[in-house]
């Protein structure tokens, strides 16, 4: 693996700046989970995915990514823009009237890079399974990725899909769960505990890997390893521990920044901690 970890970390810093500036500008949105997943998105889009930023929805011959926990749209939009799917200046329109950057991602406004709407939780794994099956029918050997939140696992549909994938040997799929342990009303342990997720997914028949989602080197290593686990008759699951709000000290580790925008002072304090590496939009 020849990934330039320092370069990826630099991009992730800029993505974090974009996230806090976007949610500050419209005074709404979900900074906590977005910040926690910034490293994952950058590792995926700038190192792992075979993808074409000249967007084609069918994505034949490309790796596909689906975001199931659509509320972390800021990190998705920033990553897509920084990858070249659309102009970075468009990030300024996030959640504002007439924008293609809706509160939750959608195909409805034809934003390049988005292949399905998400926001109502629990649906992304099923969609990814369908796309993975279409790839097999098309003789397309590229992979399908999906990210889910950990609180999202409380949705029953996730476990319908969890049961389907191993039974049907959907082994061109890499799912990831953002394990930040937080949801709107508190920690997942307080609200509805998830139990031993490794044991649960393995019991369903998945090949389960674990990683630190806020350590770029380890993340790249795990994603690379996950690729090597595909094509062996089992779907692949990465349990990715992250810290909600990672990169901004006062947002870290608390569910309180799940869906709250920073005020002007908080924005300044956050930006002080996040280097402008690629130039702000």
């Amino acid at each position: 693996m020849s990934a330039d970890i320092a370069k990826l970390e630099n991009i992730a810093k800029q993505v974090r700046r974009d996230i806090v500036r976007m949610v500050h500008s419209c005074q709404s949105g979900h900074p906590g989970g977005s910040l926690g997943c910034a490293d994952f998105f950058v590792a995926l889009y700038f190192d792992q995915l075979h993808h074409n930023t000249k967007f084609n929805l069918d994505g034949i011959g490309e790796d596909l990514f689906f975001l199931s926990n659509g509320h972390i749209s800021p990190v998705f939009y920033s990553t897509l823009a920084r990858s070249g799917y659309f102009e970075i200046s468009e990030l300024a329109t996030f959640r504002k009237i007439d924008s293609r950057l809706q509160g939750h991602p959608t195909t409805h406004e034809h934003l390049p890079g988005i292949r399905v709407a998400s926001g109502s939780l629990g649906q992304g794994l099923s969609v990814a399974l369908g796309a993975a099956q279409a790839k097999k029918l098309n003789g397309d050997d590229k992979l399908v990725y999906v990210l889910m939140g950990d609180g999202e696992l409380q949705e029953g549909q996730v476990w319908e899909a969890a049961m389907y994938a191993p039974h049907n040997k959907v082994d061109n799929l890499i799912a990831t769960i953002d394990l930040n342990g937080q949801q709107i009303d508190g920690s997942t342990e307080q609200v509805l505990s998830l139990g031993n997720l490794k044991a649960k997914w393995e019991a369903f028949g998945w090949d389960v890997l674990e990683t630190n989602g806020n350590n770029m080197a380890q993340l790249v290593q795990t994603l690379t390893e996950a690729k090597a686990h595909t094509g062996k008759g089992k779907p692949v699951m990465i349990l990715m521990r992250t810290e909600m709000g990672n990169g901004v000290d006062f947002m870290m580790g608390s569910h309180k920044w799940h869906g709250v925008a920073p005020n002007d002072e908080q924005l300044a304090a956050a930006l002080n901690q996040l280097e402008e590496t690629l130039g702000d939009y």
Partner: protein
Amino acid sequence: MKKYTYTEKKDTRSGFGAGLHEVGQKNNKVVALCADLIGSLKMGDFKKDFPERFFQVGIAEANMMGMAAGLTIGGKIPYTGTFANFSTGRVYDQIRQSIAYSGKNVKICASHAGLTLGEDGATHQILEDIGLMKMLPGMTVINPCDYNQTKAATIAIADYDGPVYLRFGRPSVPIFTDPNQQFEIGKAWMVNEGTDVSIIATGHLVWEAIQAGEKLAELGINAEIINIHTIKPLDEEAILKSVGKTGCVVTAEEHNRIGGLGDSVAQVLAKNTPAPQEYVAVNDSFGESGTPADLMAKYGLNAESIIAAAKKVIKRK
């Protein structure tokens, strides 16, 4: 009154099964998903001849709808198959977000709709599905009337790019439409031209409307009968032209009075040329166990109900 006869009865779900098999032969983009109801949905021939394009998802309808949305990414044309109840209410949010809002080319094929499901009772007899589905922006809603029309519709929707709800039923009913018909989405079928009252019917109620039309003719009432197989988009022109001529309308459907074909027709008339209207529909209630014929009689969904409604609405002109 134009004469309609039949030599054979068949269930509309068998029309779906035959159509699915035929469109599967013609178009290799067509794939099918089923939630543990292959026999009930008559999907066995498709499964047998195109096993690689058939997906048994188990009793997991939410996952089925999401997978169908995903299969369109890569160019497939998925047909999902389960009972109407489990095709709509159970998975409404999945359809809303992953299919309708996402503009996915999924064909939601729903059997055992309405009261004629029969003995299983109200848990399975959905009477709200047309309303639920027609409220979704961009959703096409089709409710064919016999085996031939269902088969033709099943084949035709593959050529339309967008989400479709295709509703059909369980019981054997007369086959009276042309086996070689070209099904055109959104185009009403003029069953019988008349002058005194417009009877606008969908699904199983079209045959009942024909029976009613014959009896009304004997009473000297000349009924115009129109089959609306596509409830959305609605053939407003055909409805306005007919009611413009007859001055009153009876709508007939195997659905709740609220939210079905009748309400769609009423909206068109209210916006353009208001006219007296009577509903032959279930009066905002759940169904119950019984034979299809007993249920249709008890809930007022047969030829006798249409005749009574026609007499009543003519007096209101």
